[in-house]
């Protein structure tokens, strides 16, 4: 991402804002989907995050952190959608019902990732699919660094065992 575009967007340039949003829209959608596991809510989360980030662009101090900053906003929007939609319902029960085959490229590892618990799948996804560092993930998900590390290790181990079990 071009820092110059982010700087212009911070100063209120709407074309520059459109450019940077278009650059991150695909990865943002995937992160939202990983969190919410359905298309409609993921698109809502993206839309709300764009409006929110536009409003607060001026408050972004370091242009190089734009992507992390936007991702944090996106995750917060996802949390709001879950809170609004499901209340106190046990999400782990609902998760299996929300998965539809047609949203994945095929029945590869990604569907096993999406069956992990909320934090575990987000950590795996942000780390291996999106390339965030563990410190950045700790910041985005507002989890202690050590928790991120232990959850990452545990879920990788679990995934690997499942893959071996299914004979892949």
């Amino acid at each position, binding site marked *: 991402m071009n820092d110059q575009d982010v700087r212009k967007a911070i100063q209120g340039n709407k074309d520059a804002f*459109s450019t940077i949003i278009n650059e991150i829209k695909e990865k943002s959608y*995937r992160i939202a989907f990983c969190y919410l596991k359905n298309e409609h809510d993921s698109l809502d989360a993206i*839309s709300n995050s764009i409006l929110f980030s536009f409003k607060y662009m001026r408050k972004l101090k370091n242009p190089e952190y734009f992507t992390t900053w936007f991702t944090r906003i996106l995750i917060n929007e996802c949390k709001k959608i879950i809170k609004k939609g499901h209340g106190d319902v046990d999400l782990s029960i609902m998760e299996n019902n929300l998965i539809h085959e047609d949203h994945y490229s095929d029945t590869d590892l990604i569907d096993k990732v999406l069956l992990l618990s909320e934090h575990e799948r987000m950590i795996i996804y942000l780390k291996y699919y999106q390339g965030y560092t563990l410190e950045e993930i700790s910041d985005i998900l507002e989890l202690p660094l050590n928790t991120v590390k232990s959850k990452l290790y545990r879920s990788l181990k679990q995934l690997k065992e499942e893959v071996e079990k299914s004979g892949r």
Partner: protein
Amino acid sequence: MEDNMNDNFLIELKRNDIKLSENLSKTVNNALLKTRRKGRVYKYIVSVAAILIIYITLLNTSASFRAFAEGIPGLKETIKWFVLKDDKGLESAVTNDIYDFGPIMIENDEFIVMIDHLTIDQVRIHFSSRVFNKNTDENDYEAFFTLSEYGANSTRDRSFQEGEYISECDIYAKGEDFRDMVFEKGYMEVNIAIKNIGRPNMIVADLGVRRIDFDMNKVLPSKEFDINEVCETEYGTITFNKLILSPTKTEVVVTFKDNDDYFITGIQKLGLSFDNEEHVYPNGSTYLIDNGEFNKTYHLFFNVSKYYYANISEVKIVIEDLFIAAKDGRIFEIKTKEHRPETITYMGEQIIIESVSSNSYLDKLEINYKILAESPLHSINLNIIEKKTGETLGGSAYVSGSYSETELYHEFSHVLKSIPKMDVYCFKIEYPRYKTDFDWEYSFKIK
């Protein structure tokens, strides 16, 4: 850690990804279009506010204007400002035409605060608010209301709708003072502060204490019913004193009295049902009670109301599981560099502190510890203390904790800020609680 993993596994993991939605570009473009429109709208926000005030005043004073406005698409939304969510009590009150004391406009040189859909009963005040800046096109502001004089609890919720922030404020009674305030005074005094939404710690304008008058004849009185039922447990007694029906909430007055050895620190679920309908619970699914001394009366509020129902044949109260803690030995002092494992006996069980570590990064201190315990522990507070003086330097309730049922261990992680750097951190953990199986139910009729 991935060094231990098979390389092929990681390559496989990264190879496939979530398929993109066909509607992604359309959604993004629509959102970007809205950001472009917004700039134009904000320039006229002050005049819009002025028109809105006239409009709302007309709505309230003129039945024909209200009827006219309801027929215009878009304007109808302004009339229905309530964000009811799961608030069945407020919904019931609105359906039954509870009196709306709004709109009210409060201003100073720079800001206009619009209070609308103001509903009052003897246990609760609820309203929405919007803030307009008279001098700029920014609308990033929110009003904070304080009624501390009446010892009330308050909750706030903010929604962002079509480029505007609307706050919902809910203030509800802790006890009798609030009830007296509503009926004896006939007005309320509210301290109003304006804050910027992006910088919630800073007050940008203080509008001071403002008086809001209301007609007492339009506040509906609550209906009280005596229960006086005692629930005996081996950890103490729970007495249900009263059931109070108000237009927007139901209240149960309950007294907890502990025995010599234990605290009842909370109830997993305290459910209330009317005429065999589904149980409802106090705000929040688990009702937690203060730490410490225990012979107290609590007012539990439920977001449901049967105030307007003439015939209720049966009311049922159920308790599912209690949280308890022992009075003695519930504070443990621990150091980060001591020899482990370390064994502590608490409530007849051995708790083993297996490992403790600390980790400093950015401005944070993270303390992690692993505890072996036969039963799950709940709610642990951690305080970092100064080794020599025992003075508390900072603390937190546990941020994330997990319990393995097969291996019987907990992993707790606390993140603290502004703790001075030290070679060895000395801290105390306190107030572990156990959940006990307990089921109790009581039905009664109200006349």
